């Protein structure tokens, strides 16, 4: 009697390892193909914006003893591969400097952008430490603006803690945050990478939309727990119209405010100084409008930090740099200063003269080398803002006025069109 065609295998479970080998090969090939395509996708979308400036000074160090704190980042962030590999070879200061360059640095608002109420968001900036939060391979690390490590902790961000179901190595996140000491909370002000996907080339509009829809979903905004040491929170982002500006300026927040942040809706995340993100402060919304010394005392004279160039020129951190003066070579030698040093100067009252918005003359006196923790010279906009604060500040009324006049202008345009 012939065996039943369907039932026969029951007592004879012929292990078919050949099929298993084929299947496993197919699975491997499939995975390799996905990886290859994925790799190609990311090369394109991140390298452009993430490539560190070709400053030879930061890549030349060949000492292969990366600080332990970098290992994790090195393993975790595949998409940043090229850059992170280079970064991992760097020693402490220079490594920190490299990381510091990955943040987008808003310029200070020294004049009001044209279409403020159309193209911009506004939010109340939390007071605290500006930092990069990176979650990968089961840990979350935060780094200050100058690149130094702030915290290493478990979090509910994708791949942010070593608990089950959160372990995809592909999946990592980079958030732009402000750490608010008082409630030990990270306030997320921007999203750079999420779950392995780069948002560098996305507009702020998209980044905020994504941030809002994704962050809560992961539980990162939940109260702290074993696998989630710090709470994350989202400042409310408003359209910069009358109501939005009013709300961000006056509404009470769960955090201490430190000025207002403005984001151009169409701008991509751009590392370094950018005029498409702006910060503005006055005494109503910030304790720190005018620079203070280490004791919190307002300084008699404005102080600026400038970088010393090879030819003795003193420049800001902008690209291209703005020149504020020049030190003579004799002085440089005598004081033991070197190219690249960051130097502190005081600005005499009314020491900055402008013609047509351009700096014409700066009356500055050398004080000392700046604190080692500084990574950058001041930006032109910062110096300008501080200068204006002391003399003719840009006030909240000016901002409201700009919005109102813009609305009026719009109306006029519409009226004209209708008249045509």
């Amino acid at each position, binding site marked *: 009697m012939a065996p039943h065609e369907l039932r026969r295998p029951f007592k004879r479970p012929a292990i078919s390892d050949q099929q298993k080998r084929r299947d496993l090969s197919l699975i491997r090939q499939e995975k390799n*193909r996905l990886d290859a395509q994925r790799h190609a996708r990311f090369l394109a979308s991140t390298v452009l914006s993430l490539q560190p400036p070709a400053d030879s000074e930061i890549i030349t160090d060949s000492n292969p003893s990366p600080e332990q704190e970098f290992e994790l980042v090195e393993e975790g962030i595949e998409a940043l591969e090229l850059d992170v590999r280079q970064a991992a070879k760097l020693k402490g200061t220079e490594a920190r400097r490299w990381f510091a360059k990955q943040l987008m640095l808003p310029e200070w608002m020294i004049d009001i952008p044209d279409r403020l109420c159309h193209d911009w968001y506004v939010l109340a900036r939390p007071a605290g430490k500006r930092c990069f939060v990176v979650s990968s391979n089961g840990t979350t690390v935060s780094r200050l603006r100058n690149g130094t490590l702030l915290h290493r902790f478990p979090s509910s961000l994708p791949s942010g803690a070593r608990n089950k179901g959160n372990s995809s190595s592909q999946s990592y996140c980079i958030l732009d945050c402000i750490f608010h000491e008082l409630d030990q909370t990270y306030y997320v002000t921007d999203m750079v990478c999420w779950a392995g996907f780069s948002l560098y080339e996305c507009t702020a509009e998209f980044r905020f939309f994504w941030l809002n829809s994704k962050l809560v979903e992961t539980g990162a905004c939940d109260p702290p727990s074993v696998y989630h040491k710090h709470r994350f929170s989202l400042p409310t982002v408003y359209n910069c119209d009358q109501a939005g500006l009013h709300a961000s300026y006056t509404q009470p927040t769960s955090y201490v405010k430190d000025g207002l942040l403005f984001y151009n809706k169409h701008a991509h995340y751009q590392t370094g100084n950018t005029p498409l993100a702006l910060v503005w402060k006055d005494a109503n919304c910030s304790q720190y409008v005018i620079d203070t010394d280490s004791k919190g005392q307002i300084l008699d004279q404005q102080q600026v930090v400038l970088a010393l160039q090879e030819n003795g020129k003193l420049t800001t951190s902008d690209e291209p740099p703005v020149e504020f003066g020049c030190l003579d070579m004799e002085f440089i030698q005598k004081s033991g200063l070197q190219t690249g040093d960051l130097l502190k100067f005081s600005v005499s009252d009314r020491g900055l003269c402008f013609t047509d918005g351009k700096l014409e003359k700066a009356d500055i006196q050398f004080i000392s080398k700046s604190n080692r923790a500084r990574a950058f010279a001041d930006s032109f906009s910062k110096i300008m803002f501080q200068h204006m604060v002391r003399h003719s500040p840009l006030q909240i009324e000016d901002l409201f006025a700009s919005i109102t006049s813009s609305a009026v202008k719009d109306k006029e345009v519409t009226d004209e069109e209708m008249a045509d």
Partner: protein
Amino acid sequence: MAMEITQFLLNAQSADANVRTEAEGKLRLFQEQNLPSFLLSLSCELSNNEKPIESRRLAGIVLKNSLDAKDATRKENLAKHWVSIDISIKAKIKELLLSTLGSSVLEARHTSAQVIAKVAAIEIPRKEWPELIGSLLSNMTDPNKPAPLKRVTLETLGYVCEEISHHDLVQDEVNSVLTAVVQGMSVGEYGPEVRLAATRALYNALDFAQTNFENEMERNFIMKVVCETAVAKEQEIRQAAFECLVSIASTYYEVLEPYMETIFQLTSNAVKGDEEAVGLQAIEFWSSICDEEIELQEYEGFESVNSTPAHSCFIEKSLPVLVPMLLETLLKQDEDQDQDDTIWNVSMAGGTCLGLVARTVGDRIVSLVMPFVEANILKTDWRAREAATYAFGSILEGPSVEKLTPMVNSGLEFLLNAMKDGNSHVKDTTAWTLSRIFELLHNPSSEFSLISPANLQRILMVLLESTKDAPHIAGKVCSAIYFLAQGYEDDDASSSVLTPYLPDIITCLIATADRPDGNESKLRISAYETLNEVVRSAKLPETAQIITQLLPVVMNKLGQTVEFQIISSDDIEKRGDLQALLCGVLQVIIQKLSSAEETKQVILQAADQIMLLFLKVFSCRSSTVHEEAMLAIGALAYAVGHEFGKYMSEFYKYLEMGLQNFEEYQVCAVSVGVVGDICRALDDKVLPYCDGMMTHLLKDLSSNELHRSVKPAIFSCFGDVALAIGEHFEKYIGYAIPMMQGAAQICAQIDDSDEEMVEYGNQLRRSIFEAYSGILQGFKSAKPDLMTPHATHILQFVELVSKDMRRDEYVTRAAVAVLGDLADAFRSNAKILFKDHSFYNMFLEECLESDDEQLKETAAWTQGMIVAAFSL
């Protein structure tokens, strides 16, 4: 216009090959030159009682093959040809066929019945043979027609019903056909031969009888007659009736309730007292009921209660009587059933059914079976001990782990002892039971782990010792080791309790594979395949040294095969089989060791020698390549990366050979996969080989001979090539893209009701997307504009797929990725493209809401790319 072809038909069956070939050639020529006349001549031959039976038989076969084929495209073509033949010739042929039913020669009648069904299959749905049914029915109703004619008429009706749907006829005709068939089954109406033919006709007509089964009165009548027939005097008729019941069980499960009591009596009697052939069908009835209920249970999770057909719980209700009946069958073993793979008897069918019952009712089976196990397991009669073990082994799937684990824990030691039973049947079934225990219940990471450090040593001692037993027993012992090892494969732990025993296990498996009687009961295969699983489940780095040491052992064995003395073709086959097994082991070792950076070095160091071995294995054959060696080379290429380039000049010809192997499509498929591996390993260094590889891949795609399952892999492979060589893919575009567009069109025409085709369509679409992704990415940095002419087509294709509810998650992921690739490649130009195809918004939304993390990620990336494109 009919021709005399008797001599050709006879010559075509000649023992002399020359005569045969010539006659076949003439017949083919005739067929090609004048199909109508050819078919007419064949039917004349078939119908002519003066002609020799040999030529009539062949005429019938050729006629049948001119109307129907297994291959769907060919079948369709044949039907077209038939339809286009002049109506008067077709009428003549049909008349001849019908008249042959009345022939005095049984074989001619029988052949004609089959041919008529094939004509009916073409013509009845087209309403081109309306008089057929009436003509056949008149054979039945006319009392003067002889019994042989009635018999062959019933046969014909059965075949016709099998070919057509009841929708092709008006309901009156359907009713008349079934009435004729059921009447033929009734006692006393005609002789036993007609009754048998009628019962078999009903079997063929069961699907056709759908409307009648929906009507309670008609159903009652049909069932009554079937049940009566199941107790006919003649064994063949009883068997045919039970076959009907088996088919009814799966086709009309939901209306069986009123008849179950009767059927239970019938099957029970048949199992206990009837001939084996009838008993087997009776058991099969219950197995089919289990199949239905298992499917319903699995279905329940997905469908709402309302749309689920009623689960009648027949098995649960029958348990108290069904289980004892099945247990009894277990005692009816054949003496030599373990040595002979072709045996299927009542005890095996009974055990199989018991296993299905266990899967149907779960925990409830346990208390019904265990008393039988306990009562028989210690008896002196081997049949009792074997039956008890078989029963125990059969119920290991279905009941909950909680229920089974304590039982198995307390029985494990007994089973291990039984591996030394004096009877080989008992040992065989014990080994099978152990292997099922490890397959189904051994889960180291769960709380119900069967294996503890304490009993593992004992288990392995017994198993390794038993690999020395008779081949059929040793083979099952290997399975047990396979599943024991498999338990640790998916375990995330970095260390395995198996590690200390690994050297002994490996030594023992190799010794088993080396046994002189290793080819009996596929023992050698089992031993090597178990070795594979042992290697796969081994934990690195703790077993790095052990596996590193295994590598030269296996390489050495493979090297020896090349030196084998070859005298006969049998030797060649044996060597090929052994090489396959050893290449398989090598592949697994390569994959294992290259999976960790620490051990990858071992492979890199041995790569030259391994590759040399594979090349020697290839050279053992002249015209075909070795699938397993090819598979292993893919793993090697992945491991060595760029370095693989140095082997290409030697290896390339075998790769070409593999790509051209249409007949063994698995070999071709594996070779296509290796092309992908090589592209990823060599990147742009693969360029010099691309012309050749692309030519073969394109030829493969256009071949009708090549099994269709290989084709999706080829499209994916286009993507691999394009990604590797970037802008250099430009010259293949003119060939590759039309193929991809053609395949996309085929996808759109796929029959939705054919599950298998739907799945194939999904594979195909996914692979086309993967090809586009590879090409778009490959061109992106240098020549994105090359794809501009195809962008709209791609978007339309994605749109079509996005609206197809039958796409699977892989297609969806690949489709959404292509959208992102388009946006990424065309940057600001993508804006215009996407503006006209706003479907992507909804599609992305769907993907972003998915539970599939990977899909969500891909969709998010794509959304980012599109948003970026719009903001440029």
